[in-house]
């Protein structure tokens, strides 16, 4: 692909479920995630966050519209090609870490390459390198149950990066972590972002979302608004009006009591925000 081509392009994406009544989980979402961008998605339950993640993550196909990942139109791909694309171009970080319990940290990180038929030596070398980058070089041979939550999420992040994907999708990556550990993970995200990784983080917590360059607010399957943040990298100041003139959002901020500014010192994890 051309370097200028975005990592992910959504073009009027709709996802409809036929339940008791027709549910529009995504109702015409158009979004472009440029290479190297850091985007957060916020929205209440049922706003379509998960569906959007699944669609971008090639786990699901849209009912209508186009999803282009790294130049490939997902809707035209067969299931097998989609799985392949997912393996190569998408890295997942889950709220519950989702590591393989019987595999060591190293093996967990190396696993996606296993399915791409990368040789064992290359696999392990790459995995060791990534574990080193997330600061877990000395935990390589530990199993997930021998690691703390933060360490597990670092392993998960390393795993997400192992195939050098077009985009890393993180679904509530700090949802199961205490505040301090959360900060560490988010710092790590920022670090990888600086290094050029494209990130998409779903969170209902303002202070997590504010680490991104912009926040996409979803409501009822539509993009309510896109909020650009001034200085996403350090996240030290409250966001002001974005470059496009969007006023700073107040959604979720009241509940967090300004935690975005000093989240490192939050004593208690605040309640889960407006969407819970």
């Amino acid at each position: 692909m051309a370097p200028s081509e975005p990592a992910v392009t959504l073009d009027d994406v709709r996802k409809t479920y036929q339940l008791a009544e027709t549910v529009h989980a995504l109702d015409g979402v158009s979004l472009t995630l440029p290479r190297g961008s850091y985007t957060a998605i916020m929205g209440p339950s049922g706003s379509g966050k998960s569906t959007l993640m699944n669609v971008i993550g090639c786990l699901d196909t849209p009912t209508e519209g186009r999803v282009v990942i790294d130049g490939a139109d997902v809707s035209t791909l067969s299931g097998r090609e989609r799985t392949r694309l997912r393996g190569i171009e998408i890295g997942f970080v889950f709220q519950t870490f989702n590591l393989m319990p019987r595999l060591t940290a190293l093996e967990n990180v190396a696993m996606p390459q296993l399915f791409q038929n990368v040789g064992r030596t290359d696999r392990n070398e790459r995995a060791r390198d990534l574990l080193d980058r997330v600061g877990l070089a000395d935990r390589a041979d530990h199993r997930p149950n021998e690691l703390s939550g933060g360490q597990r999420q670092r392993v998960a992040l390393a795993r997400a990066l192992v195939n050098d994907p077009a985009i890393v999708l993180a679904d509530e990556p700090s949802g199961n972590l205490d505040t301090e550990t959360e900060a560490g993970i988010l710092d790590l995200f920022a670090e990888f972002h600086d290094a050029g990784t494209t990130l998409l983080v779903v969170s209902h917590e303002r202070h997590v979302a504010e680490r991104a360059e912009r926040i996409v607010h979803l409501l009822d399957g539509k993009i309510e608004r896109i909020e650009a943040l001034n200085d996403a990298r350090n996240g030290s100041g409250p966001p002001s009006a974005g470059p496009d003139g969007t006023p700073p959002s107040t959604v979720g901020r009241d509940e967090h009591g300004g935690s975005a500014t000093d989240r490192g010192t939050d004593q208690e994890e605040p309640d889960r925000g407006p969407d819970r």
Partner: protein
Amino acid sequence: MKPLALLRLAWRSIAGHRLRSALTTLGVIIGVAAVIAFVTLGASLQAGIVGDISPDDQRNVYGWAADPGTEGGPLAGAQPVVSEADLAALEERSGIDAAYGYAPLGTQAVATGDSVVPLGDGAFATGPTYVREDDIATGRQFEQGEPEAVVNPAVAGAFESNVSVGDELTLVFQGGETRTVTVVGITDTSEGLSPFEGFGQSPRLYVPTDPFYAGADSAADEETDGNESAEESEADGNASAPGEDDPGNESDGEAAAGTRYTAIVVEAPSADDAAIDRAKEQARSYLESDASDASALLASGELEIVLQTSTQLLSQLQDILGLLQNFIVGVAAISLLVGSIGIANIMLVSVTERTREIGIMKAVGAQNRDVLGLFLMEAIVLGVIGAILGTALGLATGYLGAQYIDLPLVYPLEYVALAIAVGVLVGVFSGLYPAWKAARTDPIDALRYE
């Protein structure tokens, strides 16, 4: 995904559930072990019987005359029909090396000095070559017309001091008469030398038909005369029992025609089929021709000459053994089936239990066939481990069993290969559905699965 990587990952899951995997495998182990053990024992049993037929024995044709409708083993329903003259004439025919009679003697005991040893039906009057030279450990074959005997180790070792070549033994017949023989040879085994005797190990003593058969004949005359009619009617009316004929019965009948033999041995020049067939043909054509003494008795049509090699005689026995073995192996195979159901069951549990893991694998790029292969590989590994351990256990059991009932151990190697193949098949068979179910798991649901 590469097979080796698949295998490694599958092994992880198996090793992760040690007890469960062990119990699952146990079902297959028991099934395979049972099949292998029974097959080994069956093959050993057959070898124990067939192996007793020495290569020299293969050129012997065993003959007797019996009612054509008679079922049973060697000598079943046999009647004394072949005379000395017939045997002499048979020996003259081309394609026949030797022909001689065979008759158990009604001995009660054998004695040397003060030492007396009971010898039930263990004395046989026959031709010199009946005891083959290869079978004689020390000494030589006896000669016709001489009071000589060849004994087997079970007889030689039965006395307080071991009997050796040159010693004299006293035979005590059922009539009370005694005869003294000189031991001229000792065989190397105590097993039977022909299907006439049976093949088990027991004390046996072989003497020439001349003078012992005729002699026993006269010695037993008084006794047998009395129950001749009873014996005759039994032989005619109850064809299943006559295998137990005592020598009195065999020799009592046609006194006018001289000594008649119930059983004869015709030796072909070699063991190949053509030679055997020719010897049979020669013997049959002579015995059924008017020239023979036997033909007069055969003419009635109630008796028919049976001529068979020991292999042929045994085939019937082997058929029965084979049937029995198939039955037992069939029962063992059922336990194998149960074992495979066990694998299928545990794999289904495993798939459900690891739904989330399946979701993770799919999320990070595992294709359906990777997941399918992984679970199938697990089932196959369980099956193969079960088959290998089961084979080892089965072979060990077969070995102990063969030792216990004193059989030559024969491992049917093709069955061992088959057992491994069965292990793979059991794995595939029982793993296919669970693996297919795992492969079809929707990653979105699976990741949400708690």
